[in-house]
């Protein structure tokens, strides 16, 4: 994947809250990837972290709906800040 800007790629666990993020890649087996893709998490799609819980559990906004993501899942999603 080519990136034109130079914002660093981080896992969702460490991404900032409240700013627009773009999904760079997902990992964790194709069933998991396909599952989150059907919910709207796939490369190049934008999302935003709404709330942060302990150990990387998150609530995010994506495609107009809110998703809760368990701890351990957020590190399988790599994102970068959209500038």
């Amino acid at each position, binding site marked *: 994947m080519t990136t034109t800007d130079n914002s660093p790629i981080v896992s969702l666990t460490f991404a900032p809250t409240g700013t627009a993020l773009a999904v760079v890649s997902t990992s964790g087996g194709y069933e998991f990837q396909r*599952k989150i*893709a059907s919910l709207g998490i796939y*490369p190049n799609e934008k999302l935003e972290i709404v709330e942060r819980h302990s150990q990387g559990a998150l609530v995010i906004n994506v495609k107009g709906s*809110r998703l809760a993501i368990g701890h351990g899942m957020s590190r399988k999603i790599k994102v970068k800040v959209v500038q």
Partner: protein
Amino acid sequence: MTKKYEIVLAGNPNSGKTSVFNALTGARQHVGNYPGVTVEQIVGSFKTGDCEIEVTDLPGTYSLTANSPEELIARNVIITEKPEVVVNIVDASNLERNLFLTLQFMELGVPMILVLNMIDNASDKGIKIDTERLGRLFGTRVVCTVGNRSEGINELKKIIGEVVREKDKHLSEKVTYSDELMLPILELSKILTDNNSIPEGYKADWLAIKLLEKDKEIIELFESLESGKEVLKKADVLIEKLENDVDEPSEIIVTEHRYGFISGTCREVVSATLQKRRDISEAIDSVVTHRIFGIPLFLGLMYVVFYLTFTIGDPFMNWIEAGFGWLGDFISSWWSAGSESSLKSLLVDGIIAGVGGVLVFLPNIAFLFLAIAILEGTGYMARVAFIMDRLMNKIGLHGKSFIPMLIGFGCSVPAIMSTRTLTLKRDRMTTMLVVPLMSCGARIPIYALIIPAFFAKRWEALVMFSIYIIGIITAIICAKLLRSTLFKGENEPFVMELPPYRIPTLKSVGIHMWGRTVVYLQKAGTLILAASVILWIMANYPKKDKLEKDYRVEIAKIEQSQLTTKQKELKIRDIKNEEMAERLSYTITGRIGHAIEPALKPMGFDWKIGTALIGAFPAKELFVSQMGIVFALGEIDEENPVALRDELPRHYNGLQAYCIMLFCLLSAPCIATIAITRRESNSWFWALFQLVGLTVLAYIVTTIVYQVGLLVQAF
């Protein structure tokens, strides 16, 4: 002449699908299970013009890949049963995500009607949808509805009537993706057609897409075909080329193209006039899913639910009890007083007492179902699963397992039924098997009998608390054990939609509660009836012909004595009870009690406890009345067993008493629980596994506690 047509309703979870279904069919619906799996199948019907339409409500899904049993069912129903039309319900306020499923119906090439539900929400958010244009792009009829207010439902019925009569005109448009993906699809599709390897009922293009997506079930289907291996090989070549070209896994490429198609469509038909603002749901969530307040808030709410369950349920319970009492008296009156008829005893002491003893809990169970339906309907359950996920993960379970375990403190039956929300079988089975360890409401009478009888007032609360804690700890250990042996595998990743909060309609809550209550009555009821008869036979046969004393003579003696009426009554009662106890010890139940006494010894139990335990199998709280019978105290009021409370300490010590409670907590769940486990797991094996497993566990734990207790006492 009325013609019959079958259609299906499909859509995302939280798209308001069920409210549309309820509005269409009203109360004319029927809940069953799909064959072989325990996904609920709800079927209803309605009339439009001269057509009778039968509607199946498919499980809510986000996609039609083989990700979960629900998704598989949804697509297999469409492929194999070929409904006349798929009515696709989408949330109009969240069109982009919802059309992802719509697109997959189009890929299947089935006749479809698109229903833009919750259109009021969409306009509130300032979203305008050009329905005519959307219909033209997708080649389908489009209807706008507000399901929970029944708006647009009549129009939907009319359109369904029109479409089923000439369905060929309403085949949705073929989806065309950009060449990057379309070329491999067409190439693979051609290979399939040329090879003549298209299984019955499938379409070449759709199979091609599924193969490129690496769909597990379709790959397995081809592996079983003769010409399939070759197809799979060719598919692999195409996948590799595609992945090299785009530098992403093929299943992601397919997803991206689908969303690409959708955002293109949305750009043409949707216009948003308002900026997205922070809505009410978000405000509620900032409190409800708060990392510190979230859990206490939830526990408080559940306390209220349980409190209401038992306070509101109480008067109804008394009515049911009184009703069965009246029925028993009424049936007894068919026989002349004093006559001993086996049929009368079977009807009154066996069936009415047995079935009644369990049905008494119906108000509590129905109320718990109601509470679950309301909490589910508002969207709160999804939040609970999320805040509990981390904790549950530690014991190898999913956040969604928490709700069933909690409901288990009320009653195991609704708890086991609510494990349906768990998609992975290993999570679901583990939860189901350990739920009975949560100390349910029916065990409370046992504790209420024993604790005041054996323990000093200041220790009472602590003893009770320790029983509950032991149950929870045992459940945790068992869950861990099961997840690392029989149900091995990784934890299911937690990703869940948090739908906007809604006020559920009375109708949908009512239908939900009623449907589940009926299932409980039907499934548990028949088994309880059978068990009541068997246990009655065991407790009454063989009959002892020669009793040690002639009790009638003794009664007659008392009656002629100089005692006051009150004293006579008491004496006669004692004699009758003594007779009952003598007869009981001669019956099968009594004999089993005697026979297993050596086995019960390590736990500190005698044959009397053994006999009462067998009698308490239909429902745990029957233990109290059974103890009353074996101790020759006659009828025991479960609420206030004063006589028994005085009697027990003469026979047992505190350690034995504690062991009785412990055994009742851990051992075989009641018949209703076993019946529901059998239904929900779809196998007798797991139901019996639960029965035997828990009993063995109870035996081991109680024995250890008793033996260690003896040692401690000795020092």
